[in-house]
């Protein structure tokens, strides 16, 4: 199985739609422990991606497309998530450089690279109550599946479930990074908004990827 440039763009558009639908929910989470804008920032960023994808409809190099997507997101958003996802897409674009189609293995490597970019940019550790708590288990799960040559159908689902567990676990964590990093105990009891959107992105990706397979 694989995703062509066009399919990959379609998947990104699906994610953009999903973020837009869940904008208010993500803001609500951020109001509890942050400044209430996470849904707005993500929506601005993914709308910029949607716009950029329209502009570059004829681009065949997925690496070039993802590099443009990275800059579009970064410059439209700023905030915390701009550099984090900007870096993620940039690192991911290296995996896709010169390619017009990515296999499942390459898609996994794309995500592992992207998540590495987030970790490097944000310097957050698992347990800090950030998006890393969703992304890190996803990356570990994908790495393990790659190493074990696991069938991709179950591998993607496994990664989704690992991310979901990580996201839900943020509820009981004391925040240590980002805006909520000063709340101490008052941050306990709420899912981290960045972890919630991370899982939203990844699970939508997996779903759209699997649908693209059945359609093709």
């Amino acid at each position, binding site marked *: 199985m694989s995703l062509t440039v066009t399919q990959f763009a379609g998947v990104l558009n699906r994610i953009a739609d999903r973020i837009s639908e869940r904008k208010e929910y993500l*803001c609500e989470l951020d*109001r509890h422990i942050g*400044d*209430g*804008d996470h849904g707005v*920032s993500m929506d601005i960023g993914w709308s910029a991606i949607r716009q950029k994808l329209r502009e570059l409809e004829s681009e065949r190099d997925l690496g070039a497309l993802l590099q443009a997507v990275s800059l579009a997101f970064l410059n439209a958003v*700023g905030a*915390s998530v701009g550099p984090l996802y900007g870096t993620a897409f940039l690192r991911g674009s290296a995996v896709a450089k010169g390619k017009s189609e990515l296999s499942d293995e390459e898609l996994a490597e794309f995500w592992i690279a992207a998540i590495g970019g987030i970790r490097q940019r944000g310097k957050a550790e698992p347990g800090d109550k950030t998006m890393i708590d969703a992304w890190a288990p996803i990356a570990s799960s994908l790495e393990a599946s790659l190493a074990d040559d696991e069938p991709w159908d179950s591998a993607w689902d496994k990664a989704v479930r690992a991310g979901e567990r990580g996201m839900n676990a943020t509820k009981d964590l004391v925040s240590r990074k980002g805006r909520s990093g000063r*709340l101490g105990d008052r941050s306990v009891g709420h899912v981290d908004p960045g972890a919630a959107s991370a899982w939203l992105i990844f699970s939508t990706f997996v779903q759209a990827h699997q649908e693209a397979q059945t359609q093709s």
Partner: protein
Amino acid sequence: MKKLINGPDRVVDEMVEGYAAAYPQYVVQLTGSKRALVRTQLRKGKVGIVIGGGSGHEPGFMGYVGRGFADGVAVGNVFASPSPDPIVAATKAVDQGAGVLYMIANYAGDNMNFEMSAELAAMDGIRTAAVRVTDDVASAPAGDEEKRRGIAGVVLQYKVAGAAAERGYSLERLVELCGKANRNTRSMGVAVSPCSMPQTGKPAFELAEDEMEIGLGIHGEPGLVRGKLASADETAQSLIERIVPDLGLASGDRVAVMVNGLGSTTYMEMFIVFRKAKQLLDAQGIRIHRAHVGEFVTSMEMGGLSITLMKLDDELAGLIDDPADCPAFTQA
């Protein structure tokens, strides 16, 4: 919340355009990067100072571009750090060969976006250095000072750094000075009513009629504790009692004081709070060198205020006294 705007998605661009149109004697909007404003007159050889942050803190941060303050500002979305694009554009525009100082309020977003900008500026051969303002005593315990966020104390630190840059300090001396200024600045605030994001219209938090939030951030981030609404005098006292020991102030010390309104708090309230703060400082033998009462770094229409103290040595006192001329802070 009713707002006189044309649409939530247009507020920042239209505000920046309006600001630049109002103050052509102070700033120009860069054509390539409209979220970057740069001083109309730049002086060869002076270290450039670039500041920035999210919108919603007006007159900060745009208002602090001018003589004796910053040379350029990058404007982010509401409560969101600017992206590297305007930061880098401002950096290039203000660099006069002596390097550029970034003054950052220590939020994750600002830190990362300015960090990326520094990397990009370096590729263009521009030397930058970044200093972080961490004045909010409520945001991390003593010992963890470097984790604290910057709130209204940024303004007094802009003032000091801006004056020093005018005096001809090098980038290295400015970094050193900012370190000292930051170690000697502490703030803390309270909120009595929330602000709301233009895009969501939802209040950032809910407070009962008889409640206040103590130690909150300037983006409506929840604070240290929620307490009963206190009187002006009690509020001043609880803030001063946190700030003074954290700063290690003792009798005979000199301070600059800032009472900063968060948006809908009246000057009346600010002056009443200042009155008590001064009485408390007087009683401890701490001398007010200069006071500033007004709106310097707001949180849109949030109700509440913060108190900032900067402990002054002769160097800092002199820099605090230097003339300054920018729309948000003019001193003859």
